[in-house]
């Protein structure tokens, strides 16, 4: 068996007296699609923040592709090939959808420091931008300001921005948050069509999505891993039912 792509070692993060994450260990194989579920406040977003370096762990560390990334600044983590989307859309509101995608695609490009280089052609003509836009269903919306897109489209853009950096590991924080059932359906299709080379961690409340997409599921509860396994096994786990599925956990 190959080494896992992502390895979290006993990650703990405290906010004052509260341990938002408490000794979480997690291993994700390359090409795997892992769902992270758990009630609100379980520490799911905090886990992502610790992986990306946006928060520093109180204890424990994260390894990516065999090397420790904890302690690196977030931009350096991103350059290693980790990208994330946010629970609340976090795009460049005053730029067009195309420009949003291009900025993401151009992260790390050498030409970014060429102060006197000629102005680049419109983002909508860039092949990299068009490809991602197509993958997230925004091909016809590239010239619209991000802030003017519908909620569903903004969520698609959120995914597109994360994808455009060509990550090896993609962290998706509730990609269907606030979506209508039709929009959710569409997002499930988009996610299912992502290339397998991109390893995915998906925080999600929508159980259909989880059971459609995920190879394995980890359940977080009060900052700890309550259960982990194949979707069917997790679904049958009585403890999981108690804290989450049974108690109408679609919150």
């Amino acid at each position, binding site marked *: 068996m190959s080494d896992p792509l992502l390895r979290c070692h006993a990650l703990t993060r405290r906010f004052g007296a509260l341990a938002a994450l408490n000794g979480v260990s997690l291993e994700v194989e390359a090409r795997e699609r892992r769902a992270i579920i758990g009630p609100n406040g379980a520490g799911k977003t905090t886990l992502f923040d610790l992986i990306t370096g946006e928060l520093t762990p109180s204890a424990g560390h994260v390894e990516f592709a065999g090397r420790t990334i904890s302690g690196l600044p977030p931009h350096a983590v*991103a350059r290693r090939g980790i990208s994330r989307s946010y629970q609340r859309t976090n795009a*460049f*509101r005053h*730029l067009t959808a195309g420009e949003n995608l*291009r900025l993401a695609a*151009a992260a790390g490009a050498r030409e970014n420091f060429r102060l*006197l*280089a*000629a*102005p680049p052609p419109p983002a909508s003509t860039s092949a990299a931008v068009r490809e991602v836009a197509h993958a997230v269903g925004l091909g016809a919306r590239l010239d619209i300001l991000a802030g003017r897109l519908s909620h569903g489209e903004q969520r698609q853009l959120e995914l597109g921005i994360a994808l455009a950096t060509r990550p090896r590991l993609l962290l998706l924080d509730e990609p269907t948050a606030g979506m209508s059932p039709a929009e959710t359906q569409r997002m499930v299709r988009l996610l299912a069509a992502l290339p397998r080379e991109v390893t995915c961690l998906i925080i999600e409340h929508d159980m259909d999505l989880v059971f459609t997409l995920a190879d394995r599921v980890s359940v977080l509860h009060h900052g700890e891993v309550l259960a982990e396994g194949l979707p069917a096994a997790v679904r049958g786990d009585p403890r999981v039912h108690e804290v989450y599925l049974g108690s109408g956990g679609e919150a």
Partner: protein
Amino acid sequence: MRSARRLALAGLVAVAALPWLVGSYPVKLAQEILIWGIFAMSLDLLMGYAGMLSFGHSAFFGLGGYVAALALRGWSPSLVSALVLPAAAAAAAGLVVGFLSIRVSGVYFIMLTLAFSQMFYAAAFNAEWLGASDGLPGVPRPRLIGLDLDRTEVFHLYILAFFVLALVALARVVRSPFGRVLRGVEDNERRMVALGYAVRRFKLAAFVVGATIAGVAGSLEAQFNGYISPEALFWTTSGEALLMVSIGGAGTLAGPVLGAAAFIGLQSLLSSYTEHWTLILGAAFIGFVLWAPEGLLGLARREAGG
């Protein structure tokens, strides 16, 4: 777009012809507007494009002025003294001040840049060799191959050339891939970091470019007045440039030039009638912030139905 360019070109020709068309006072006014226009544009790069509200931009303006004054007076009345040395000094200072200030943001960034510029002010104010509170008088204009810069029309074209150079360079910078990155930082800095941009490096580069051009503007100011005094370093100098950028429209480059024209024009118009012209200026500024936050240029565009 094309018509805007034509308009700019026509304006340029008109400004260039001023010494042959009008008296010496309006020409002086135009030169002051050009110099402050350069200064305001350089601040706009920070404010309007990179989202850095610097209250310390006067440090580089004043530094450029002092270095030019020292070099032109004591070393040689050459373009090296008038341009290269002030620009280099301002760039170096911008690198240090920027490196330290960019570690913080928001109010702390404002306070830090303000504090740095006040240090520069205090240093000049207390330095005998810099003329202390009087500053350095008798700054000669440089001698360029066969050009007599003491003649009004020659000096006018000389300043205009610097203005055009600064405008073209900055317009190029903000449209370059680098400029796009700055726009991203201004819009959503946190996301830029998450995408993998070493945001501080981009901000620092913008800060240094802005400081360098501010230094050139300061040098021109010293040549224009024939002296430089600590007032150039004082925080109100930054404040005036800030007003010009806000009144004209941040993030447009052309806007701050309009802002400089409005500011300096209003100042000369009102100060001959009333001592309280700053009060009127303040009221105008408040009006802009409340009802036309996009500035003069934004107003003009709105009127044009754009």
